[in-house]
């Protein structure tokens, strides 16, 4: 084979000059593996985008769907850290908090004295432009949240570099708790004349999303649809990044790291860089979703940043399947609907059988139960990723002689 000849099976890039049959070029492009991979995400997102059209503008279902979409973003972010790179992060709530406070600080009247009480306004229109405090356009806030959380993710990742296994889980958990404590008691901390956070009182109201070319959004009750579409756009972004990263050099490095750190490093994978990129990337999505939720829920409140939130998101990843992108999407949608719709609807069920409590009291016990049951009965999740399934079950079933071909990711 000469150097100039294109390999006949180069996927997705049909050679222009050496076309075998001219009329099949388009067909070839459409049936190329790269295109086929796109079909499912595009159809999924397209269908999802139509959902608000069949629902009432102020339907509570639309609100649940918007929250679910925001949680899909977080779960896919956590999936990068736990699912791809195998670093168990029990403090993911830290990134939610940092993202939410980014919009709390940069998109509310919290710093009311800023600029002598006149406020600082960057690319904002409408009502917010006339308010005191710092008001920055939502897209810029999103970028800021991304930067802040990426840095925070790497800082939190640093101390875990020398550690393995469960120690990583505990250190990340400790960081999550520290951030939560700072959020809660931040009203007693001040920088100059300003409080750091507003503790359990919460920073409220938060600026509504303000996109170029469209009117600033209004609060959910009036028209919830634009919020859903923005959340869906974030889902599209995170899905794209997840798929592209999984199949990239970096993604393969993460999987190698997850399977055997020593072997990976002796094959020349830079451990520090690879791990920090996993933390940074995963954190960035937690931050973006956090900024969105801050605006959507109209409050940035220390009560939101509890350890149980980290476990809520982790349950989504576990339920769907560690490392399995579609699995995590399904897990996140299922659990957020369970949390916001199913459990509240069945709230009185225990009293029907004569028990004296409400089902909502049990929600975190239910998630705990789910974690235990999943890990014992089906550790690979509902929609497993094949490679991960083999990893998780090989010791249990003596599957050392799994043929190499089966391990194709």
């Amino acid at each position, binding site marked *: 084979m000469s150097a100039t000849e294109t390999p006949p099976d180069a996927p997705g890039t049909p050679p222009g000059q050496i076309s075998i049959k001219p009329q099949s070029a388009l067909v070839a492009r459409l049936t190329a593996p790269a295109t086929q991979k796109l079909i499912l995400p595009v159809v999924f997102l397209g269908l999802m985008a139509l959902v608000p059209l069949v629902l009432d503008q102020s339907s509570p279902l639309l609100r649940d769907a918007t929250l679910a979409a925001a949680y899909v973003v977080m779960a896919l972010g956590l999936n990068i850290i736990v699912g791809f790179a195998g670093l168990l992060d029990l403090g993911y709530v830290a990134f939610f908090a940092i993202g939410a406070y980014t919009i709390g600080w940069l998109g509310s009247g919290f710093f009311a004295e800023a600029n002598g009480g006149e406020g600082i306004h960057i690319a904002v229109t409408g009502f917010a432009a006339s308010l005191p405090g710092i008001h920055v356009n939502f897209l810029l806030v999103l970028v800021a949240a991304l930067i802040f959380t990426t840095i925070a993710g790497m800082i939190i990742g640093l101390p875990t570099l020398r550690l393995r296994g469960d120690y990583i889980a505990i250190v990340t958990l400790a960081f999550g*708790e*520290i951030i939560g404590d700072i959020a809660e008691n931040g009203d007693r901390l001040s920088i100059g004349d300003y409080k750091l956070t507003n503790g359990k009182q919460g920073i409220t109201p938060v600026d509504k999303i303000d996109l170029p070319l469209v009117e600033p959004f209004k609060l959910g009750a009036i028209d919830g649809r634009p919020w859903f579409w923005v959340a869906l756009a974030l889902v599209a972004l995170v899905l794209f990044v997840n798929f592209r990263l999984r199949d990239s050099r970096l993604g393969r490095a993460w999987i190698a790291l997850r399977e055997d750190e020593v072997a990976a490093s002796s094959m020349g994978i830079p451990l520090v860089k690879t791990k920090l990129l996993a933390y940074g990337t995963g954190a960035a999505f937690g931050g973006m979703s956090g900024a969105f939720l801050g605006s959507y829920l109209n409050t940035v409140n220390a009560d939101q940043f509890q350890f149980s939130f980290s476990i809520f998101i982790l349950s989504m990843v576990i339920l769907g399947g560690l490392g399995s992108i579609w699995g995590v999407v399904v897990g996140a949608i299922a659990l957020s609907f369970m949390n916001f719709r199913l459990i509240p609807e069945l709230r009185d069920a225990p009293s029907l059988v004569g028990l004296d409590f409400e089902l909502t009291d049990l929600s975190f016990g239910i998630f705990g139960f789910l974690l235990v049951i999943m890990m014992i009965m089906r550790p690979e999740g509902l929609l497993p990723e094949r490679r991960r399934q083999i990893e998780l079950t090989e010791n249990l079933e003596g599957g050392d002689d799994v043929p190499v071909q089966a391990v194709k990711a």
Partner: protein
Amino acid sequence: MEAASVPVAPAVPFGEKARAFISTYGLIAILAALPVYYGVSDLVNDGNLTRLGNNLVAGLSNGAIWALIAIGYTLVYGIVELINFAHGEVFMIGSFVSASFFGTVGLTAATGVLGLVLGLALTLIVAMLGSGLLNVMIERVAYRPLRDAPKLAALITAVGMSFILQNVGLLWRGGSQEGITDLVQAQKELFSFGGVTVSNGDLLSVGVTIPLVLLMTAFITKSRLGKAMRATAQDPEAARLMGINVDTTISLTFLIGGMLAGAAGLIYALYQTTIWYFQGFTAGLIAFTAAVMGGIGNLRGAVLGGLIIGFIQQISDNRIGTEWTPALVFSFLVLIMVFKPSGLLGEQTREAG
């Protein structure tokens, strides 16, 4: 001649030296920072160390509770290399069992001394058995099926168990902090020495902890079953080949760890006189910090770590503010993990290496 006999010091680069110095003394320096700072400030402001002394006494009593819980972490980690995340909840259930049992045996603030001692001894046994058996059950249900699976799996079930037990606590005694009868008049002054007050609660805490720790140490070092535990911790496969029933030994380890947590639960309930379903989460993390500080897998280390953490916590509660104590303890946890994951007395482990 002379020059030849003098050993030439190997040229150690400064960076290496500094690193060695930090890894030897860094942790001690970090731990000493708060007591020394406030000790000096006491001397400057009050001219004596009474306030720090009071912190020390209260700190040691708290620390005794953390030490009892930390032993459970360390024992279990030593034998199955798993952080028993639900251990804090086992402690919480110990408190709840105690509080419920007070009513059963009819202990009230008016009970006489003899009745109180007997009743509390009975409660101690019940709480220890309850927590111990619960811990054994957790191992059977949640950890044993996953013993050969990746460690991530067992840790996740541990977190799950912890949530389930929290919910059990929530349903059992409600969601808010609950005051319970101050049976031993925990804050009442027992005696005072140079301005440093020792209260009933301090005596109870130390008086229950020391015999328990001694008993447990004797059991592990002297008895046949203790020997089996140590052998299993060293090498489960070899222990099995030597005829040790590894499953039973692991259950026994969980039983002992749970029993100590149950005792800690009773002391906590009597000492703090408030209990709630969430107490296990924070206590668990504090005790885990203590276990890591002492060197995980090391019993003496767990006790030492517990006492140090108790002291630091008391200083923080008293001087910085109760609301910052958890953040401070977690910062210590991170610092230890970064600079000396092997802890004060521990050896390098595979995890921390």
